[in-house]
C-alpha cells in the first residue's frame, strides 16, 4: 500500500509542472523558475546580457581593480563558461552594451560574425563570438573615462560614442572619420538618413551631417544620457536629465523647433520605442508616451527605474527597480492603450540594478536572463528542463555510437565489480578509459600544447611583413613558401587551428592540398601538388610541434608553410 501511495505521489510530482504550464499559459511570468545563477563576485553588471544562437554574453564592470577585472564572459545555456576576455585598464564603469553583428560585406569591406565591445578606457574591440579572440580593435579618446554609451550600427559602419564625440568605423575596423563634439556619458548616437545625432553632458544635441559638417541644438541646461529616439523622419525625442527632474522634448530636425512633451521625474532611464509608444522611466514613475501623431503622455505607473528598459517577447516591458529592495517590474500595454504592471520578479539577493534583461523563446518556452549590481546572473525559464548538450551540432552517429558503447562498457565494469570479477572489471574499465581518451585526444593535445608552449615568444608582429596590405592587420594570414615561389593570402577570420585555416586559404586560392591521416594527427603531404621533402609550418615565427589540426591559433596569427 505504501509503495502504491509513493508511486502516485511521485507521479503527481512529475506531472505537476506540466499541468501548471498548461493552465497558466497567459500568465507565464508566474511560471518562471530559476535554472541556475552565477555570482561574478565583487564586480557589478550595468548592462543587459546578450543571447546569440547558443551562447550568452555578459559583461561585468568595476570601479577599482581590487574589486575585480572588467570582463566579457561567454556562457552556454547550462551556465558553463566558454571563454572570457578581460580589460584590466577599464575601471571607469563599463556600461556600454554588448552589440552583435552578423558576418557581411558592404562598400567599405567585409567582416565576420562579431561582438562589438566598448570599454571605459576608450578601447573598442571586435571579438570573435566563438572564442573571444580579437578580430580588430580601435582606440578612442580617454579623458577620465572612454566609451560608456551604446555604439550604433549604420549599414556597413559602426558609430562609436567616444568620450568627446563620435568615431565612424567600417565594420572591418577601418576608421572612416573621427568627430570632436561635446563630453558624453552613457550617451549614444542615432543614425538618421545617413546623418548622426548625439547628446552630451551639457544638454547639447549634436548633429553630424554626411559631409561631416557639425551643428548643435541646445536642448536645455541638463544632460542627455541616452540615444535620441527617432519618432519619424523629421522628429527626434530626447529625455533631458535636470538636477531634480527631467523633461521629455521633441525636436523637429528640419526646423530646429523644440517642444516639451512632458515634465517627468529625476534620474531618467534610457527610453525605448515600442511600436507607436515610447516607454520611459525615472526615479518616480514609468511613463507611456503615445507618438502616433504628436507625442503625448498616456499614463504613468509608480515605479523607480533609472537604467535600461527591456522590451521582450514583443509585449512585455521589464524594468530593474533601482533601489535597495531591487527586483524587476513587468509591464505591458492594455488593449485600451494604457500601461499597467503585470507582475514583479523578486529574488533573495535583490539589490540596486540598472541592467536590462535578455529574453529568448525556444519551442514556446520563455527564457530570461536577469542581472543586477550584485553581479548575480540568473537564468529563468517557464517549465524548462535543462537538456544538456541536446542540440550540440557536433553530435553525429559515430559519437552517439561511441557514447552508447562507452555506456555499455562502463555498465559491464560495474556488473563485473558487483560479481567480484575484478580482473574482468578492470578489462572493461581500461577499455572505457581508452575510448574516452581517444575521443578527447584532440582537445587534450591542443590544451597540452597551449600549456607547454611559451606564448610570450609568439608575436604576430614578428612575422608581419610591411608588404602586406593594411587590411590584413588583425586578421589571419597564411603564407606558402614553395622552393620556387610564394603565395600570400590574408584577411581571414574565425579559424581556430592551423589546418582549418590552411584548408580555407587553399580552397579560396584554388590550391590543391593533400592531407594524410597518421596516428599523430593529420599530416600535410603536398600543397599545390608539391611535396618536396615535406612541409613545415610556423605560427608567428614559431615552428609547429604538433599536427596542424591540433595547433590552435589566435585571430591575428601568421601561419607560414615552408616546403623543405
Amino acid at each position, binding site marked *: 500500500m505504501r509503495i502504491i501511495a509513493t508511486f502516485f505521489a511521485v507521479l503527481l510530482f512529475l506531472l505537476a509542472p506540466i499541468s501548471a504550464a498548461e493552465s497558466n499559459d497567459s500568465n507565464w511570468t508566474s511560471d518562471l523558475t530559476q535554472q541556475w545563477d552565477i555570482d561574478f563576485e565583487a564586480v557589478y553588471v550595468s548592462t543587459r546580457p546578450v543571447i546569440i544562437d547558443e551562447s550568452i554574453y555578459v559583461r561585468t564592470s568595476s570601479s577599482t581593480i581590487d574589486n575585480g577585472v572588467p570582463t566579457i564572459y561567454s556562457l552556454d545555456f547550462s551556465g558553463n563558461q566558454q571563454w572570457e576576455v578581460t580589460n584590466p585598464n577599464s575601471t571607469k564603469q563599463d556600461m556600454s552594451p554588448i552589440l552583435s553583428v552578423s558576418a557581411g560585406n558592404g562598400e567599405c569591406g567585409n567582416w565576420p560574425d562579431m561582438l562589438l565591445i566598448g570599454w571605459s578606457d576608450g578601447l573598442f574591440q571586435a571579438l570573435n563570438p566563438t572564442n573571444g579572440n580579437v578580430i580588430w580593435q580601435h582606440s578612442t579618446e580617454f579623458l577620465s573615462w572612454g566609451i560608456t554609451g551604446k555604439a550604433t550600427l549604420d549599414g556597413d559602419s559602426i558609430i562609436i560614442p567616444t568620450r568627446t564625440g563620435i568615431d565612424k568605423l567600417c565594420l572591418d575596423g577601418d576608421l572612416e572619420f573621427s568627430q570632436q563634439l561635446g563630453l558624453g556619458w552613457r550617451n549614444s548616437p542615432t543614425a538618421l538618413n545617413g546623418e548622426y545625432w548625439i547628446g552630451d553632458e551639457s544638454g547639447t544635441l549634436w548633429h553630424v551631417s554626411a559631409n561631416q559638417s557639425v551643428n548643435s541644438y541646445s536642448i536645455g541646461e541638463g544632460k542627455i544620457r541616452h540615444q535620441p529616439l527617432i519618432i519619424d523622419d523629421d522628429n527626434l525625442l530626447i529625455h533631458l536629465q535636470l538636477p531634480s527632474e527631467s523633461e521629455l522634448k521633441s525636436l523637429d530636425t528640419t526646423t530646429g523647433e523644440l517642444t516639451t512633451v512632458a515634465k517627468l521625474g529625476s534620474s531618467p532611464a534610457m527610453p525605448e520605442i515600442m511600436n507607436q509608444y515610447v516607454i520611459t522611466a525615472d526615479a518616480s514613475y514609468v511613463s507611456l508616451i503615445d507618438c502616433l501623431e504628436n507625442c503625448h503622455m498616456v499614463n504613468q505607473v509608480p515605479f523607480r527605474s533609472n537604467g535600461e528598459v527591456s522590451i521582450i517577447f514583443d509585449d512585455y516591458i521589464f524594468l530593474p527597480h533601482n533601489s535597495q529592495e531591487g527586483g524587476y517590474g513587468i509591464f505591458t500595454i492594455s488593449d485600451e492603450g494604457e500601461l499597467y504592471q503585470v507582475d514583479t520578479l523578486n529574488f533573495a539577493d535583490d539589490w540596486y540594478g540598472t541592467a536590462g534583461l535578455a529574453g529568448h523563446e525556444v519551442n514556446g518556452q520563455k527564457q530570461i536572463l536577469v542581472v543586477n549590481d550584485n553581479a548575480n546572473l540568473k537564468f529563468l525559464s517557464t517549465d524548462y528542463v535543462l537538456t544538456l548538450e541536446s542540440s550540440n551540432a557536433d553530435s553525429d552517429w559515430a559519437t552517439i555510437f561511441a557514447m552508447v558503447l562507452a555506456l555499455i562498457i562502463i555498465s559491464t565494469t560495474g556488473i563485473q565489480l558487483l560479481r567480484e570479477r575484478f580482473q574482468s572489471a*578492470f578489462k572493461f574499465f581500461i577499455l572505457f578509459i581508452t575510448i574516452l581518451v581517444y575521443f578527447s585526444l584532440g582537445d587534450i593535445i591542443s590544451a597540452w600544447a597551449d600549456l607547454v608552449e611559451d606564448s610570450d615568444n609568439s608575436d604576430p608582429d614578428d612575422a608581419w611583413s610591411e608588404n602586406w596590405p593594411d587590411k590584413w592587420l588583425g586578421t589571419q594570414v597564411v603564407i606558402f613558401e614553395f622552393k620556387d615561389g610564394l603565395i600570400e593570402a590574408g584577411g581571414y577570420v574565425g579559424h581556430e587551428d592551423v589546418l582549418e585555416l590552411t584548408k580555407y586559404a587553399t580552397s579560396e586560392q584554388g590550391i590543391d592540398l593533400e592531407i594524410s591521416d597518421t596516428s599523430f594527427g593529420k599530416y600535410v603531404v603536398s600543397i599545390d601538388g608539391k611535396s618536396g621533402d*615535406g612541409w613545415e609550418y610556423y605560427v608567428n615565427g614559431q615552428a609547429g610541434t604538433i599536427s596542424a589540426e591540433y595547433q590552435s591559433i589566435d585571430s591575428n596569427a601568421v601561419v607560414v608553410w615552408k616546403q623543405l
Partner: protein
Amino acid sequence: MFQSYGVHGPVLGPVAGLAIDIVLLGLAFWMLASPDMKKVSNILTFVTLIFGISLARILMSPLPNIQPVTVACLIIGAQLGARRGVAFAVLVTMISNFILGDGIWTVYQAIGWSTVAIIGAQSKLIIDSKLQLGRLYFLGIASAFLFDFIASLSVIGTVNAGEFMTYLINGIPYDVVHALGNVTMAAWFGIWFSDVITQFQSMEEIEQTVVDGYVIGS
C-alpha cells in the same frame, strides 16, 4: 617539426633505405639463427606471429599511437627469449613500415621494440608458465615511454636541443595514450597471446622429445 620530419624524422633516399633494410634484415636473421629454430613448422609459426602483429599494427595505425607491437614484444621476449624477441621486433617494424612509411625512424623503432623485447626477456613475466599480468601492465606503461623516447631520437641532428625537448614534451599525451593502449592490450589479449606462444613452445618440446626418443631408440 611534426610536418617537416614526417612523424619521426627525415625520409631517406632509396640507397640509404636499402642499406638500412639490409642491415636490419641481417640482424633479424642472425638473431633467428639459433639451434632451436631450424624446424620449418617453428619458422612458419614464428612468421605467422610476425605477420599477424604487423597486420594488427597496420590496422590500428589510424588510432593515435595505439601500438600492439609493444606488448607483443614484451610477451615474445618473455616466452621465446631475447634473440627471437629482437628478431620479431625488427621484422615487424620493417614489414609494417613497408605499408606505413619507411624512413630513418624504422631503425629507431626497431631499436625501441628490440629494447622492449629484451626487457620482456629479462623481467620474469612468465612464472610457472603463467603470465604475470600486473608486471605486464607495469612494463607496458614503462615501455611506452621508453619506446617513444627512443623513436623520438630519430629527429636528433635535424633539431637543436631546445626544439628536441619541446618535441618530447609535446609528445607526452601520445606517450600516455600508448601506455594506456598497452595496458588495454595486455588486459584483453595478454593471456591469450601468451597461451598461443606457450602452445608453440609445447609443440617444439613434443617434437624434440619424439626426435630424442627416436635417436635413443635407434
